[in-house]
C-alpha cells in the first residue's frame, strides 16, 4: 500500500521544475504571453531535449515509455510555471495515435512526435461547446470538410488528430492542404487556439479510434486537472508571498486574520487536489473500471478550484492583482483555459452522475 509517487517520479518532476525555472521563469512566460505566436521554438526544443515530447510514448517508438501518471506529474509542474506552448495538445495527439492507430500509423508518427520532429494537436470541439466524442458530427470519408473549434496551436501543428462522427478519430497532416486556420482571441495566451476549417483535407482514419477517443479525452481531462493543480498551487504561493511582503498599518498584511483565514481557506481547497490528480492518473493507468468517472470528477473539481483560487489570488493582491503587469493574470487566464477546455465542470459532473447510475 503506497499512495505516493516514486523516487524516479520525484526526480522527473524535479528535473522539469528545474527546466521551467531556468528556461522559462515568469518574466519569460510574460514575453511569450504577450508575443504573437505564444510559442517559443527554443523553449520547445529544450523540452524535447529532455524527452518530454515523448513522455508517454513507448520506448520502442523513441519515447520515454512512461505512463499517464508521469505525464500528469509533468503537467502539474508545467502548470505551476504557466509554461507556454503546445505540450498539452501534442501529448494528447501522441496518446491518440498510440491508443487508436494502426501499427503503420504508430511507426510513422510516434517517433516523429516523440522526437519533436512533428508537433501534434487535437481538434475535438464543435460549435455549441460540443467536446465529447458522442457529440462529434464531422464526417471522415477519406477527406474532411467542416469546422473544428479551439484547436491548440492548430496553426503550427504538423499532425492534427480530429474527432469525427460516431466518436472516431482521424489524422490530418496540416501540410497536406485543405486546412485553414483562424486564430482564436483566447484569454490564455500561454496556450493558443485556432479554429480549423477543413475543405477536402486528406485524412487517415485511426482504426481503433472509436475505442481510443474516450480514453484520449479522459487523459486530456486528467492533464488539465494536473495543470490546474499546479497553477492553483502557484496562485496560493503568490498570494502568501504577497501577504508576507505587502505592508499596511505598519505590518505585513499576513498579520491580519482577515487575509490569513482567506489564505487558509484557499490552501485547504488547493492542497488536496494534488492527490486527487495523482489518483485519477493512476486509475487511468491501472484501474480501468474507475478511470472514466474519476477523470470527469477530477477535471471538474481541480479546474473549479483553480478558477476560484485565481479569483481569490487577484483579490488578495488588491489593485495590483487586477493589472496586466501582475503575473496573477497569467495564471488566472490559464485557469479559464483549464476550466473550459474539453468541457466546463458542470458537463463533467453531469457525466459523472450518469456514469454512477444516478
Amino acid at each position: 500500500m503506497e499512495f505516493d509517487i516514486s523516487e524516479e517520479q520525484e526526480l522527473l518532476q524535479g528535473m522539469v521544475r528545474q527546466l521551467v525555472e531556468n528556461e522559462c521563469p515568469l518574466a519569460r512566460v510574460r514575453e511569450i504571453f504577450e508575443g504573437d505566436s505564444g510559442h517559443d521554438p527554443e523553449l520547445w526544443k529544450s523540452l524535447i531535449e529532455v524527452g518530454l515530447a515523448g513522455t508517454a510514448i513507448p520506448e520502442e517508438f523513441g519515447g520515454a515509455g512512461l505512463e499517464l501518471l508521469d505525464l500528469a506529474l509533468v503537467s502539474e509542474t508545467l502548470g505551476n510555471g504557466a509554461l507556454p506552448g503546445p505540450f498539452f495538445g501534442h501529448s494528447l495527439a501522441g496518446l491518440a495515435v498510440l491508443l487508436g492507430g494502426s501499427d503503420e500509423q504508430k511507426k510513422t508518427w510516434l517517433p516523429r512526435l516523440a522526437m519533436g520532429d512533428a508537433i501534434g494537436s487535437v481538434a475535438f470541439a464543435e460549435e455549441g461547446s460540443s467536446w465529447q466524442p458522442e457529440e462529434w458530427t464531422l464526417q471522415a470519408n477519406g477527406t474532411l470538410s467542416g469546422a473544428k473549434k479551439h484547436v491548440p496551436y492548430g496553426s503550427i501543428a504538423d499532425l492534427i488528430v480530429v474527432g469525427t462522427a460516431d466518436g472516431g478519430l482521424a489524422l490530418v497532416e496540416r501540410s497536406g492542404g485543405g486546412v485553414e486556420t483562424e486564430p482564436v482571441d483566447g484569454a490564455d495566451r500561454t496556450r493558443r487556439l485556432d479554429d480549423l476549417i477543413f475543405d477536402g483535407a486528406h485524412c487517415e482514419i485511426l482504426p481503433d479510434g472509436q475505442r481510443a477517443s474516450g480514453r484520449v479525452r479522459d487523459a486530456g481531462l486528467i492533464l488539465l486537472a494536473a495543470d490546474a493543480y499546479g497553477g492553483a498551487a502557484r496562485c496560493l504561493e503568490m498570494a502568501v508571498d504577497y501577504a508576507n511582503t505587502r505592508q499596511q498599518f505598519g505590518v505585513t498584511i499576513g498579520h491580519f486574520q482577515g487575509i490569513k483565514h482567506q489564505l487558509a481557506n484557499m490552501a485547504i481547497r488547493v492542497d488536496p487536489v494534488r492527490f486527487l490528480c495523482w489518483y485519477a492518473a493512476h486509475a487511468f493507468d491501472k484501474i480501468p473500471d474507475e478511470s472514466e468517472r474519476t477523470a470527469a470528477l477530477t477535471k471538474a473539481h481541480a479546474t473549479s478550484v483553480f478558477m476560484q483560487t485565481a479569483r481569490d489570488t487577484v483579490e488578495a493582491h488588491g489593485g495590483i492583482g487586477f493589472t496586466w503587469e501582475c503575473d496573477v493574470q497569467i495564471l488566472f487566464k490559464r485557469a479559464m483555459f483549464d476550466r473550459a477546455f474539453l468541457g466546463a465542470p458542470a458537463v463533467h459532473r453531469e457525466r459523472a452522475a450518469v456514469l454512477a447510475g444516478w
Partner: protein
Amino acid sequence: MDLSYGEEYEEFRREVQAFLAESWPPRGDEAQLPQNEQIDRFRERGVEAGYLSRSIPRKYGGSEQEADSSKAAVIGEEFRRAGAPMDLLGGGVSLLVPTLLERGEEWQKEKFIKPTIRGHIRWCQGYSEPGSGSDLASLQTKGELVGDEWLINGQKIWTTGAQFADYCFCLVRTEPEQPKHAGISYLLIDMHQPGVEVRPLKQMTGNSGFNEVFFTDARTPRDWIVGKRGEGWLVSRTTLKHERSGLINVGQATSQLPALVDLARRSTRNGRPAIEDPEIRQKLAEVEGFMLANEYSLRYRATKDIKGQDPGRIQLMAKLIRSDIGQEVAKLGMELIGDDGLLAGGAASEMGRPDGPQDNGAWVTTYMGSLAGAIAAGSSNIQRNIIGERGLGLPRDAAAQRGK
C-alpha cells in the same frame, strides 16, 4: 409606504418634460454647433431652470435649489428618458466641489467651481499610492514649501482619468515630523507641467482605466491648498452635504438580471436550454433575491435621505453587497457561456454591469471586471472592518490600532 411620487412631484415632472421638449435635442442653428457647445448651452439653461447643479450656489454657477431627492429623482428619470446631458460625474464634481464649498477659500470657489461643474476643466484624484492602499494615511508623496511654491515629489496610483485631467486634488505629506494623519495637506496641482508624468496602467482585461502619476519637482502655488497645512486628512473626509441626486435610481440593483436571464435563454446546458435547467433557475432566483433585498435597501436609504434622517448602518454596506452580488452574477454568466469562457473577452464595462443583451465575450470581461468591485475604492476586507466596527460596534483591530 408610498412608492408613487405623489401629485406634487408629478406636476414637477410635467414641468421638466416641458423644459426638455423645448431644450433637448437642440434645434435650428444650435443643432449645427459642435456637440460640446450644444451640451454647454443646454447645461447653462438647465441650471437656469433649476434642474442642474442644484446644490451649488448661484454665484459659483449652480442653481442653488433646496435639497429634494424626489425632485432629483424625477429630473434624473426625465433627463435619462430624453437622452439629455445630466450633471457631470467624477471626482471633480462629486468630491472636490463639495470640499471646496465647505473648506475652500473664496477665491478658490470662484476660480474652480463653475468651470468644473460645466466640464470646462477636469480633475483627477491623487490619494492612493503604491505603498498606501487600505492604509491611506501612510502616504509618502512629499510637498515642500520653497518660496511661494510647493515642490511635490512622489507617486500616485489608481488615478482614474489622469490622462485627461487638467488638475489634481491631491493628498501630500507636507509636515514630515508629524504623525501619520497629521502631516498631510490637501493641494491642488496643475497637471499640465513638466514635473507631472502620467502612465496608464493596463488591466487584466486588456483595457486601461487607471494611471500612475509621477511627480518630480512638480510645482503649485503656496495658496493652492484647501484647509490649513496638516489638515488635509480631515479636509479629504469632509462630510459630503452634496445632494445625492443619483441615489434613487430605481431598478439599479437589479439591472444585471435581464441580461443574465437573456443569456440563460440563449444558452444550452447539458443538452437543454439553460433556462430550463433547475440549477440555473434556482441560481437566478437566488441572485434575484439578493438583488431585490439590495434594491429596497437602497430605496429605504434614499427615503431617509429625503427625510433628513439617518438610515443607519445599512448605508455602510452598499459597496460590499454590490461587489458580492456582482461576483455571483459574473460567475453565473461564466457558467452559462460554455466554451466561450475560453475567449479573451469583449467590450463590457469593467465594473461588471452588463445592462443589456451582450455577446458572450462581454461576459468574460464581466467575469474579470467583477473582481475590481471587490478591490477598488476600499477593498472588501476594509469594508468588512468598517461594517464590523462602525456598523456593529466591534472594537478596532489590534493590528490596525497599532498603526494609528
